[in-house]
């Protein structure tokens, strides 16, 4: 089970703060492709993906129990 946290417009539009994906292992790239295919992220998404609170690359591996977060372009400050 992989937990995916949502923030800002993603949280608001999906009306929930997290989704779960029933997989034990996948790469960040695979997750991104799955989210794209399912219509949750646009094709050329500028959303970054964090795994356990660190920004991750497409080749990084997500494992069961990891906390993933979708990080749209930030606008703090």
């Amino acid at each position, binding site marked *: 089970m992989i937990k995916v946290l949502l*923030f800002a*417009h993603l949280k*608001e539009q999906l009306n929930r703060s997290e989704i779960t994906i029933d997989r034990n292992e996948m790469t960040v790239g695979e997750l991104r492709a799955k989210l794209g295919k399912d219509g949750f*992220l*646009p094709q050329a998404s500028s959303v970054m993906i964090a795994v356990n*609170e660190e920004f991750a690359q497409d080749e990084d591996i997500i494992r069961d129990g990891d906390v993933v977060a979708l990080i749209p372009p*930030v606008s*703090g*400050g």
Partner: protein
Amino acid sequence: MFDIVKGPIDVSKVIDAVADRNTGAIVTFIGSVREMTKGKKTLYLEYEAYESMAKKKLEQIGSEIKTQFPDAKTAIVHRIGRLEITDIAVAIAVSAPHRDDAYRANRYAIERIKEMVPIWKKEHWENGEKWIGNQQETVSYEKTGVPKEFGL
């Protein structure tokens, strides 16, 4: 001091956190809620953060500054929740023995915050609201295609 808070920011405390006997210069940046942006009147802002990660990233900025400016000390506090016009959203204080380092490190901190700390701002105007995509407003979330319903 690297923190995400839900109430008003006390700038004096942020400044005090970086002062010591070898401080010759402290540069402080205060980002506050401005009423007019490109002719549009803001009513209030809402800030949201991925709090645990945001705090870590603020600490990381402190470490990055330490690497580039070994004698500098950094403190950053960002507020989240609803902020009214003139409220302080972020305060950054950097101390250093000499002013050039303090200015440069402070500027570095705010640019890094706007680049990679997971905090988002929603603007509320009289006739609408919008999550701001990035500070240059080149990315707007009106363009992303998140469906209303889903079923992973």
